[in-house]
């Protein structure tokens, strides 16, 4: 059974907030919820909140901190996701980190030709199969918005493809409650029945508040449905420092937290214990280009702070890493993704998405998925930390070898040298051997290895279930 590769006890910890600052952020968030509140027009949500003690003034809802405290007490502090076949694999708890790809890309970067084109439904099969072959990704997303199917059906069709070709749990977005009902039906067919689905939920809904501080009727309908059915869900706003959020980082963290916690309050009123995942995509608006940055150091910093907040709340956290503003899986992309992956892992983010995403959220790239997968491989030894005990302190072997000796033939070396990480992609050979092996640039090796990975076979859903999904899809509208 796959477990998180990150030993949570020895894992080095990145704290970007002092504990006093965590309290400050929390109190400021409570002040925003009590003073400013959020805009909600959805009647059932308004009724629920009013009954529970919120102050409702037209479409403005102000929430006292006691309501948030109640919700935090009711919410599960861990959520476990499972594979299509019911194996509980992704444990969202404490500082365990689980990486996965992205969703809703408009474009696709062909790994063989390097051509950039619109994302098509068939690309979901490629990316889902690739996901199946890359063990450092333990869960998936639906990758892209298929341009070759009716836009109203795209959300379900891409998820159907992803669930057909990969076993791993999938995070999805959907347009409305009808889509969500279709998706839930699909998940029940795949799991067998509701009981089996609840044993190891294999789908997670991503719900987006509109920053600043709004939740639409559609979003609330979907969130309430998920809470009722105990479908795990993420409530994840996008405070973009300087445009949809305040320009200061602490302020964007506060607003993002308020936007997520209002979702928590509503879901826990609907059904105490409904699985909920906290988070926010806090990043900066690039004031030179207006883009929403996926590689900014401030995004990385705020992401780490939000992870700390989640540990304070004892809620699972949805993080962002392994993505880039670059247009190709190039050096910029590698630098940005490496920094965000390391920070996400060490800050203890749980469900970390957007690995393999380029061009600030527009471009899905299998080659970049493979590159980031190797970055995660390289990260594993760092997150395992340093084992300190007599055997590893090695005083005896240091004494036996003594000054001027060497360790190459010691038993201690033979027993431990395999603790060192080796890459199959990053080159450490000397110049002469590198030339002898063709002197390949990194991009050329990446292309070759991506195509190799894509040759492997997907794990197809059993035929009778595929047929049932096909029958269901005929009635989608």
């Amino acid at each position, binding site marked *: 059974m796959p477990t998180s590769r990150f030993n949570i006890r020895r894992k080095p910890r990145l704290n970007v907030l002092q504990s006093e600052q965590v309290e400050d952020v929390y109190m400021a968030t409570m002040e925003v919820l009590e003073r400013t509140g959020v805009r909600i027009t959805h009647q059932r949500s308004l009724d629920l909140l009013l009954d529970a003690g919120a102050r409702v003034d037209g479409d403005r809802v102000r929430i006292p901190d006691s309501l948030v405290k109640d919700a935090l007490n009711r919410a599960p502090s861990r959520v476990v996701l499972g594979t299509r076949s019911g194996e509980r694999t992704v444990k969202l708890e404490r500082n365990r980190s689980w990486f996965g790809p992205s969703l809703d890309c408009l474009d696709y970067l062909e790994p063989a030709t390097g051509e950039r084109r619109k994302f098509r439904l068939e690309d979901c099969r490629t990316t889902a199969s690739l996901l199946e072959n890359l063990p450092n990704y333990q869960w998936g997303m639906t990758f892209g918005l298929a341009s070759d199917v009716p836009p109203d059906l795209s959300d379900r069709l891409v998820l159907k493809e992803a669930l057909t070709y990969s076993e791993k749990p999938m995070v999805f977005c959907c347009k409305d409650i009808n889509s969500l009902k279709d998706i839930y039906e699909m998940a029940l067919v795949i799991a067998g029945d509701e009981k089996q689905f609840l044993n190891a939920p294999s789908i997670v809904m991503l719900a987006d508040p509109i920053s600043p501080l709004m939740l639409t009727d559609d979003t609330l309908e979907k969130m309430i449905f998920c809470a009722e059915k105990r479908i795990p869900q993420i409530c994840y706003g996008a405070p973009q420092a300087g445009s949809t959020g305040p320009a200061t980082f602490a302020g964007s963290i506060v607003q993002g937290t308020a936007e997520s916690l209002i979702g928590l309050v509503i879901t826990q009123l609907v059904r105490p214990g409904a699985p909920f995942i906290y988070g926010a995509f806090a990043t900066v608006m690039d004031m030179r280009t207006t883009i929403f940055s996926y590689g900014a150091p401030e995004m990385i910093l705020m992401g780490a702070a939000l992870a700390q907040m989640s540990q304070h709340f004892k809620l699972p956290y949805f993080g962002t890493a392994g993505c880039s503003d670059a247009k190709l899986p190039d050096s910029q992309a590698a630098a940005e993704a490496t920094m965000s992956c390391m920070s996400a892992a060490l800050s203890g983010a749980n469900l970390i998405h957007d690995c393999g995403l380029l061009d600030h959220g527009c471009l899905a790239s299998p080659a970049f998925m493979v590159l980031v997968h190797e970055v995660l491989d390289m990260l594993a030894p760092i997150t395992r930390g340093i084992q300190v005990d007599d055997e590893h302190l090695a005083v005896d072997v240091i004494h036996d070898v003594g000054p001027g000796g*060497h360790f*190459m033939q010691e038993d201690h070396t033979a027993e431990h040298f395999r603790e060192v990480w*080796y890459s199959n992609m990053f080159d450490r050979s000397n110049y002469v051997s590198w030339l002898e092996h063709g002197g390949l640039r990194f991009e050329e090796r990446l292309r070759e290895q991506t195509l190799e990975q894509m040759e492997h076979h997907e794990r197809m859903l059993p035929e009778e279930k595929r047929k049932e999904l096909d029958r269901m899809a005929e009635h989608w509208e």
Partner: protein
Amino acid sequence: MSQILEQIATGIIGGDIQGVEKLVQKALDEGQEAETILQNGLIVGMAEVGKRFKAAQMFIPEVLRAAKSMHGGQELLRPLLAGDKAGRAGKIVIGTVQGDLHDIGKNLVGMLCEGAGFEVVDLGFDAPPDKFTEAIKTHQPDIVAMSALLTTTMRAMGYTLKAIEEAGLRDKVKVMVGGAPVDAEFAERIGADGYGHNAVSGAEVARNLIEAG
């Protein structure tokens, strides 16, 4: 190939130092020729080790254990092998040159050469030119191997070579050089016969120099 020779080769690959010695003894007791055991057991195993290392399937500590097993087996066979070299690939005098205290690379080449069947005389580090010339006179090696890590000390390789020439010993030995700052061009400039760009290729260069005569 008989089963025991296969086991010896497997033992070498697995770095089973005691196991290889026992198997070699057993093979001798069973009446196998020493030369056969060497060629079809030990050397077959070590050749496979070289292949696997190149393919990144084996790591240096494993190669060194294999080399040590090879060496142990060979020592048992040596008294029984005919010829003045007694089954040895040749003799190497190796050292880190004057002014340089870095010897890990030199040690590695030394151990790999032993594994490849050479008798290795190690002069240690910071070895002045006359230590090399004296060693040539005393040990009469086939090859002199010099190592340096620093751009400032690699020049001492040239001085050592000159000292070997001046002592009239240059035509008695092949000279090979290696170390991080050393490249093929430098080796040629100072008049060395061979250059290895890493430890494993160092051992190969030694074998090639012997084969070329």
